[in-house]
């Protein structure tokens, strides 16, 4: 067990990081992510017109983020970014438009940043909307190619969800918020469970022999292989969405309107005025290059730094992510990583390292 954002978290269960990782890629892994920050934002005086109420809520939240919240359909989830005035990331988060009456927006932020995030959202919506934290309950993820088969037996409604859709489903008389989403690159679900039911739900998941419990170690290696940034490591308040390689999270409508924090910087970066960008790096020899390792060009000049790195169980080789100048960001570019003073050959690689297998609805 280790301390993590004020919570005691298991790094691994008895089978160990490597086996947990490979099991999740082949079967299904269960992750206790109750430390994260789920919350609901609802209008204080809803009109009862679902579309109008959603637009009103979106108008309150959009000034904080670069995503298209107004355009969310009922039940749709969007990955978006909270930005500071300089266009740096305050956090990355999920915002969903609840598909159930009066549900408002369902928001999930990172554990270490949740108090600050919630304070920002409350300040921006004060008087108009109310934020109800739901981080006193359980948030449980199940990820992997067999996740949908497992969930179909426990919560029959879950399998009908498309990727990045959420629904409220009854289970043993209690409402669960079930999202088809995750952070491993696999198909899967994230389920908000009332505290009183959380342990029973976790136990029920693990009773299925296809499901293993997965600790922080494999959670990190899975998201690293999936090329997904970890806030506080691959992104912080100095990093813009474009630098982080999260261009897809900047709404075209919002970029045209320049109506989010730091929009001018982000527009300039989109136009090519970019100092650094997050890339995937395959380490071709030697030890894993971990967070903080320097990245050098072929002439030996330091050009950047590893922000996440380790051993990829799926590839059987070390992989990393880090920032380099755009001129060195093309996949195939030869670089080196400096580990304990030794330069090891490395190469820029397209992300993700391991293909995503999100479920696509026809």
């Amino acid at each position: 067990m280790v301390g993590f954002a004020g919570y005691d978290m298991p790094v691994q269960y008895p089978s160990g990081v490597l086996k947990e990782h490979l099991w999740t890629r082949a079967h299904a892994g269960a992750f206790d992510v109750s430390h994260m920050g789920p919350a609901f934002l609802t209008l204080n005086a809803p009109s009862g017109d679902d579309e109008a109420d959603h637009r009103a809520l979106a108008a309150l939240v959009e000034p904080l983020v670069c995503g298209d919240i107004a355009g969310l359909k009922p039940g749709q989830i969007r990955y978006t970014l909270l930005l500071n005035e300089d266009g740096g990331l305050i956090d990355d988060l999920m915002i969903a438009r609840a598909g159930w009456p009066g549900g408002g927006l369902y928001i999930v932020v990172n554990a270490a940043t949740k108090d600050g995030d919630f304070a920002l959202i409350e300040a921006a919506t004060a008087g108009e909307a109310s934020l109800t934290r739901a981080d006193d309950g359980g948030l449980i993820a199940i990820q992997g190619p067999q996740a949908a088969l497992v969930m179909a037996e426990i919560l029959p409604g879950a399998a009908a969800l498309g990727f990045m859709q959420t629904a409220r489903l009854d289970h043993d008389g209690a409402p669960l918020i079930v999202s088809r989403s995750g952070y491993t690159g696999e198909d899967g679900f994230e389920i908000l469970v009332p505290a009183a039911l959380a342990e029973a739900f976790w136990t029920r998941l693990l009773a299925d022999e296809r499901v293993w419990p997965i600790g922080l170690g494999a959670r990190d290696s899975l998201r690293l292989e999936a090329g997904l940034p970890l806030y506080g490591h691959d992104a912080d308040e100095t990093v813009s969405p474009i630098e982080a390689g999260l261009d897809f999270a900047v709404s075209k409508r919002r970029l045209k309107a320049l109506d989010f924090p730091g929009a001018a910087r982000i527009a300039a970066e989109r136009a090519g005025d970019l100092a650094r960008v997050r890339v995937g790096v395959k380490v071709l020899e030697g030890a894993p290059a971990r967070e903080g390792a320097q990245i050098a060009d072929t002439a030996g000049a330091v050009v950047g730094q590893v922000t996440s790195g380790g051993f990829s169980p799926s590839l059987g080789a070390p992989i990393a992510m880090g920032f380099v100048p755009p001129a060195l960001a093309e996949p195939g570019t030869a670089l080196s990583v400096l580990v304990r003073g030794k330069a090891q050959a490395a190469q820029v690689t397209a992300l993700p390292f391991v293909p995503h297998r999100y479920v696509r609805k026809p």
Partner: protein
Amino acid sequence: MRFTKDHEWVQVDGEVATIGITAYAAEQLGDVVFVELPALGKTVKPSDGLAVVESVKAASDVYAPVGGEVTAANEALSGTPETVNQDPEGAGWFVKLKLADPAQVEALMDRNAYETFLGTL
């Protein structure tokens, strides 16, 4: 075989000491994915960094339990680092040293003392 509180083991044969990490250490590290070994001819003093063992989780230093000159490194570990987990106190050895001072070995724990020490952790 002798042991340190940092969970290295030493097996002496004449003036050569073979060094590795204990089964307890291998278990704690988890799946070993890389071992960085010293160059032949390198001279180390007790407690100097001797090798680095990388598991999926983290990198950990392995210290020289005794002083001497590196005469062999287990190059097989570069292709099969998992040997450290499978046979930590045998085929998973790291380094052979030509002992600078055999008396340094005597100062280390024997297996009984090491197991007693493990019981306190």
